[in-house]
């Protein structure tokens, strides 16, 4: 019978010469993710005093990653709890409920009337992706407008969902602030009913946020144009230190009656990076529509990964629903935001004290984790090569990586690369400037040409 013929194992029955080729010959190596590539380069650098100002992950003043105390407390209450499928649904619903309250306001009509469809998501990325797929499914011909610039992964997310993207003016390279006039123009000129991605606070990568007045205008224009605003909320609490304050843009849109969509991430503001916790919500006309939309969102996530992991969901829902732990969390968010604000001020002062002729106001004007420094690609490369300071090619500095110990070194390095590139001699009046020898003596000592003119107590 059939079976005996084939009992000879491993013997090829085909004589095609192409049989031994690999199936994957035509797979080229993927381009490295630009942000992760910075971390990779940083990790590969053997220099002991290297500094990573690339990825937007919070560090304390010792440069160490932080597990928030509120997280530890929530862990203590849930950590050893082993999750059963039965409890998962309840916990997920709780997470969505609490996340919605956090961003829309506890007393918002949207919450009271249950006019939102929400699902837990794999942090901000996951929430954006589910929305992008949802947008594609129900508005197949639509595009998405991104601020220029925006987080590098936004383009990949909507791209993989097959939604083409366009940009609207946002950052003004001369003022290093918001290009409001051009922004409003672009919003006006976009076809009615376009989809826009907005960052409500602590814009990534520029740190430039519209003022409340400007948000009011944007919201009004959106109303006229019937655009759909999708908010990517990755830093609630990180801009001002106050979660309510940081939600202002969204509250403004809500008051204007927009039915928005919102991607929330708890990676940064709760330090839950690795747990991948977030929430996707879409505001609806009523409860009934909310149920229908939620079912569609669930269906999309069911074919992508099923459901997000319960551990992180459980932590966030505990933190937000337990008043004591929540109060602790709010305090800790303020501490993180304040430290970053302090580092901004310190870095700017240091650069000004060094006599840099450039304008560094934007370091303190910009808000949140990132500073769009204005450094050129060449300067960024030089910082990495010669000073072992790593940041993304667009000159975005993660201020979370700046500490009291390294801020002087960072300032000097920035001053050095910008001064030499712009043909300005380094002055000697930094002799009185205290040097952190334990960080930088080795490098600057050996780089004779660079060190000349910098009076270092070596």
């Amino acid at each position, binding site marked *: 019978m059939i*079976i005996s013929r084939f009992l000879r194992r*491993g013997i*090829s*029955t085909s004589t*095609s010469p192409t*049989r*031994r*080729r*690999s199936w*994957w010959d*035509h*797979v080229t*190596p*993927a381009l490295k*993710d630009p942000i*992760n590539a910075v971390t990779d380069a940083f990790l590969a650098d053997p220099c002991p005093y290297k500094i990573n100002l690339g*990825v937007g*992950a919070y560090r304390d003043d010792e440069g160490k990653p932080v597990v928030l105390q509120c997280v530890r407390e929530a862990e*203590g209450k849930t950590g*050893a709890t*082993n*999750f*059963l*499928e039965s409890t*998962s649904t309840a916990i997920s619903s709780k997470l969505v409920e609490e996340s919605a309250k956090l961003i829309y306001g506890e007393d918002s*009509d949207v919450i009271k009337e249950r006019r939102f469809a929400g699902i837990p998501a*794999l942090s901000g*990325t996951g929430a954006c*992706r589910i929305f992008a797929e949802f947008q594609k499914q129900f508005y197949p011909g639509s595009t998405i407008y991104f601020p220029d610039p925006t987080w590098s*992964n936004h383009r*990949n*997310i909507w791209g*993989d969902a097959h939604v083409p993207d366009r940009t609207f003016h946002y950052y003004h390279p001369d003022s290093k602030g918001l290009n409001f006039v051009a922004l409003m123009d672009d919003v006006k000129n976009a076809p*009615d009913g376009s989809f826009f991605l907005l960052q409500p606070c602590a814009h990534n990568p520029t740190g430039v946020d519209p003022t409340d*007045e*400007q948000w009011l*205008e944007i919201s*009004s224009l959106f*109303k*006229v144009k019937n655009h759909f605003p999708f908010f990517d909320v990755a830093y609630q609490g990180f801009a001002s230190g106050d979660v309510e304050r940081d939600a202002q843009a969204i509250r403004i849109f809500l008051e204007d009656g*927009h039915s928005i969509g919102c991607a929330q991430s708890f*990676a940064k503001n709760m330090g*839950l990076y*690795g747990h*991948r916790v977030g929430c996707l919500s879409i505001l*609806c*006309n009523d409860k009934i529509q909310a*149920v*229908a939309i939620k*079912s569609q969102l669930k*269906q999309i996530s069911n*074919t*992508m*990964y*099923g*459901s*997000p*992991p*319960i551990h*992180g969901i459980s932590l966030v829902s505990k933190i937000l629903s337990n008043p004591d732990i929540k109060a602790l969390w709010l305090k800790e968010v303020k501490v993180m935001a304040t430290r970053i604000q302090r580092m901004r001020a310190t870095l700017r002062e240091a650069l000004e004290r060094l006599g840099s002729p450039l304008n560094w106001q934007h370091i303190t004007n910009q808000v949140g984790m990132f500073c769009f420094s204005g450094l050129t690609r060449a300067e960024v490369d030089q910082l990495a090569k010669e000073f072992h300071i790593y940041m993304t090619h667009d000159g975005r500095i993660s201020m979370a990586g700046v500490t009291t110990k390294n801020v002087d070194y960072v300032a000097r390095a920035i001053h050095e690369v910008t001064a030499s590139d712009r043909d300005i001699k380094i002055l000697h009046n930094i002799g009185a400037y205290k040097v952190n020898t334990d960080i930088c003596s080795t490098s600057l000592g050996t780089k004779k040409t660079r060190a000349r003119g910098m009076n270092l107590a070596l």
Partner: protein
Amino acid sequence: MASTLLSLASATPSASLCFHEINKGKLNLGCINKEKTNPFIKAKSFGRVSMVVASNVSHFEGITMAPPDPILGVSEAFKADDHELKLNLGVGAYRTEELQPYVLDVVKKVNKLLLEKGENLEYLPIEGLAAFNKVTAELLFGADNPVIKQQRVATVQGLSGTGSLRLAAALIERYFPGEKVLISSPTWGNHKNIFNDARVPWSEYRYYDPKTVGLDFEGMIADIKAAPEGSFILLHGCAHNPTGIDPTPEQWGVIADVIQEKNHIPFFDIAYQGFASGSLDTDAASVRMFVARGMEVIAAQSYSKNLGLYAERIGAINVVCSSPEAAARVKSQLKRIARPMYSNPPVHGARIVANIVGDSALFKEWNAEMEMMAGRIKNVRHKLFDSLSSKDKSGKDWSFVLKQIGMFSFTGLNKAQCDNMTNKWHVYMTKDGRISLAGLSLAKCEYLADAIIDSYHNVS
């Protein structure tokens, strides 16, 4: 005046005055005139034009309810039933003899350990926890497998089986556009949805033979042979879901022959390693056979069932390539796909698995618990078979219950008969005739036998 107001929001379909907007005193007619000259061009703020029209109608107005998930819907119906003899044989989640959910002792231990360690919660790399990726590949292929030693496996941590399958589907869509995936008829319900949403075309190969309540081997081979060269063949590594019918080792050999002959790519979904026979190694035999022949293989793993980590979403996608260089390229592309899906995978489940599989004492304990769980299911099969054989005087051959393997059994009942199971006997199962033995206790076997016999003989 009202019409002027309404014309401002020209694109807004429903522009009725909103009651609470008026109450808030938002009527601000004074600003209307400024709208005639486009005020937004100027840099100054003009103060808002208060919109008195109601909330914009949702952009997603016409969206309808998605169809309910057939499997999860069963559990919901079960919950709603308050009959005292009700039995939930719907979803494939392991239950103890007391029909309680079960958290493995090793998992409890490791959760405690992790709590004490208090490690940081930084992002994992896109490909996941390195320690996890190492042990998961070794668990599937065997630590001494040449493909591991030669670094020919691209392993990326995924969100359980579903997430891992989706990564592979996206890879297929990108690099083999238009190529089909052949899936068994029947197969796990979500397979089709995953490939649909990933835009990968699929077709079916015959698998279940309702006449024998067994494998339609000839049909399966014929359909795999008939598929265009270079198709992807989705195979269940062990404990086929939903039928519980696995090919014999000899049959696996023939399947491998045909796949090689037609230059197809074998794509394994291994969701039950350890649950079929009780032995992790034995259950990996089919995959290892294909790999031993030098074939390039895709394999998706899940720890949802065998470690009970359903809710933590931990699994992996492995692509065995012909060279380490190809594996590196493939891995980079899997990462490229994962980044815009969720950036990097969750850390907790990965740490649990890495700790258990990476520690010989814990690994031994896991093996023992695995045997216990699979053993309970085998016992239940025996008891059910005995009950059916002794109660049913018709002479029908119920031995398929013993031949089938893993959590599920395809009873051969049709939809009407399944409805009878539920409506008359309060036994909840999926409409394709599948029962989850993991949800059956020894104590309930006789009752179930009565229900099956009644449905089979008295309902058509």
